[in-house]
């Protein structure tokens, strides 16, 4: 264990030196030069990419992987302008992005690394833990604004959403809202963790978040009679489930291919599960 760790440290310090000393000399930042792989994109996929990269670097001492968040849009934009080899995304690449990529001579190649279920969370004190997709839609579009209107206590519903450009929002919008607009006075939070915390703190709240971010401080509602669980997400019975993607320029080759193969291997998919997502592999089996 000692040897790869040292190698990693050296790699890291070498990169820092590069940054400081050779910043103007762009030759150093050429990612092909010393096997540096950069991964950029969705914050939902970030924990998977992070732990995957750490374990992969332990196994392959020569490899050097840098993982960054920024969001699905940033990841794909970086793939297009060539500043990252791997873009992670919690949504499918958009048509306009594909067009931009083509124009820049980049051919996005899609790989599904995991399945993500979007849990609808309510405060543990709330007895309304069985919802239907139409009810969720009515709550989020503002048709229903008090829990008593759908059979709960007389309490104002505090609707918690995500910023309209986050991947989680886009998936939720497509899966649950049918493209309808979220009421403008919904609270907008910047991350899954904040949704979790706000729902836990607010008795009347409803929020949605990646299955991997569910904590026991909130209660996941069943949707259309299907409990939100690993099995139902993988089987596709749970209505609010989506795949998580990795995009590369063309079919992955070399070190990038080895890394993606590792993520899709049994060991890689075990890491996916440890991060609270659902293995993409067992789905196809």
């Amino acid at each position, binding site marked *: 264990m000692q040897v790869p760790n040292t190698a990693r440290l050296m790699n890291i310090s070498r990169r820092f030196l590069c940054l400081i000393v050779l910043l103007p000399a762009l030759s150093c930042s050429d990612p092909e030069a010393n096997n540096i792989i950069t991964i950029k994109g969705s914050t939902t996929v970030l924990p998977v990419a992070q732990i995957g990269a750490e374990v992969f670097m332990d196994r392959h001492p020569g490899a050097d992987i840098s993982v960054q968040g920024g969001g699905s849009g940033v990841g*794909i934009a970086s793939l297009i302008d060539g500043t990252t080899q791997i873009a992670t995304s919690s949504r499918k690449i958009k048509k306009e992005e594909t067009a931009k990529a083509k124009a820049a001579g980049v051919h996005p190649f899609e790989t599904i690394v995991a399945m993500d279920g979007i849990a609808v969370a309510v405060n543990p004190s709330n007895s309304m833990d069985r919802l239907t997709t139409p009810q969720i839609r009515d709550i989020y579009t503002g048709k229903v604004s008090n829990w008593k209107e759908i059979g709960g206590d007389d309490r104002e519903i505090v609707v918690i959403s995500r910023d309209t*450009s986050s991947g989680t929002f886009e998936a939720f919008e497509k899966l649950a809202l049918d493209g309808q607009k979220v009421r403008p006075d919904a609270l907008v939070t910047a991350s899954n963790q904040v949704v979790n*915390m706000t729902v836990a703190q607010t008795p009347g709240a409803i929020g949605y978040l990646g299955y991997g971010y569910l904590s026991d401080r909130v209660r996941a509602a069943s949707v259309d009679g299907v409990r939100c669980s690993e099995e139902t997400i993988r089987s596709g019975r749970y209505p609010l489930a989506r795949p998580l993607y990795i995009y590369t320029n063309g079919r992955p080759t070399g070190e990038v291919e080895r890394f993606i193969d590792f993520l899709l291997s049994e060991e890689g998919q075990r890491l996916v599960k440890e991060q609270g997502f659902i293995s993409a592999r067992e789905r196809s089996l």
Partner: protein
Amino acid sequence: MRHFKETLYKWIFTILAFASLLFLVGIILTLFRESYPLLVRHDFFDIVFGRFWYPTYDPPEFGMFPLIAASFVVTFGAMAVCVPIGVGTALFLHELASAPQRAVMKPVIEILAGIPSIVYGFFGMIIVAPFIQNLLGIPTGLNAFTASLVLGIMATPTVASLAEDAVSFVPSSFREASLALGANQWQTLTRVVVPAAGSGISTAIILGIGRAVGETMTVLMVAGGAAAIPGSVFDPVRPMTATIAAEMGEAVMGSAHFHALFAIGLILFLITLVVNIFAEIISRRFRLKLGLGR
């Protein structure tokens, strides 16, 4: 040789001094260039006074009025908190505090100024918001009121230390003359010191406004983030800065949404520019009044 060195130093410092001017020009040009594509496609008044912010829908709506209104509500709320505390602190420090009190208070205020804004954000989100929610029995504590409160605490050190400077610029001859005429300390404070330092204190307040308008992290975490025109101070709001911070990461580069975020940045920049110009005009007048020159 010596002459050469002198010239060299002169040039080095000239270049350094002009660097910040260069950055400013670069930032302004970028803001205009990146928001231009949106401004040509949509009517300016529809953008500034539009009531709905749905940037990612088809067709998108870029009504920034809720965001601008939120920035104003939160900023004025913050002023209501930080002006009394900040100016009061300044007057206390300068007129009433004993030397040991001052020795403790001044560093404490400076430490308060040095706390990163994200720490204020955490504090507001985890402690202040639930507290206010339970205290007032409102649906959520993440609203304009809480954001104003936290932002006000944040801007207090700025106002306090600048106001303290202003008060300390009042020549002691003013104070001595007043006391010699038989005025007591309170009369001297309210009728001589505060009027003399008035425009300096105004500058402090205006710069405090600038600080509050531009603050991002705290409002992103505490204001709730609802892009609706606030009906009361207890409604969740989404100031301009929070919108940029929350959405820039996921906006498709070069899209209308991307340009709209730059347009928000441009409006924000123009607001802070006006605020700073006012501060400069008032502070110049203040210095002239006290005979300090420029």
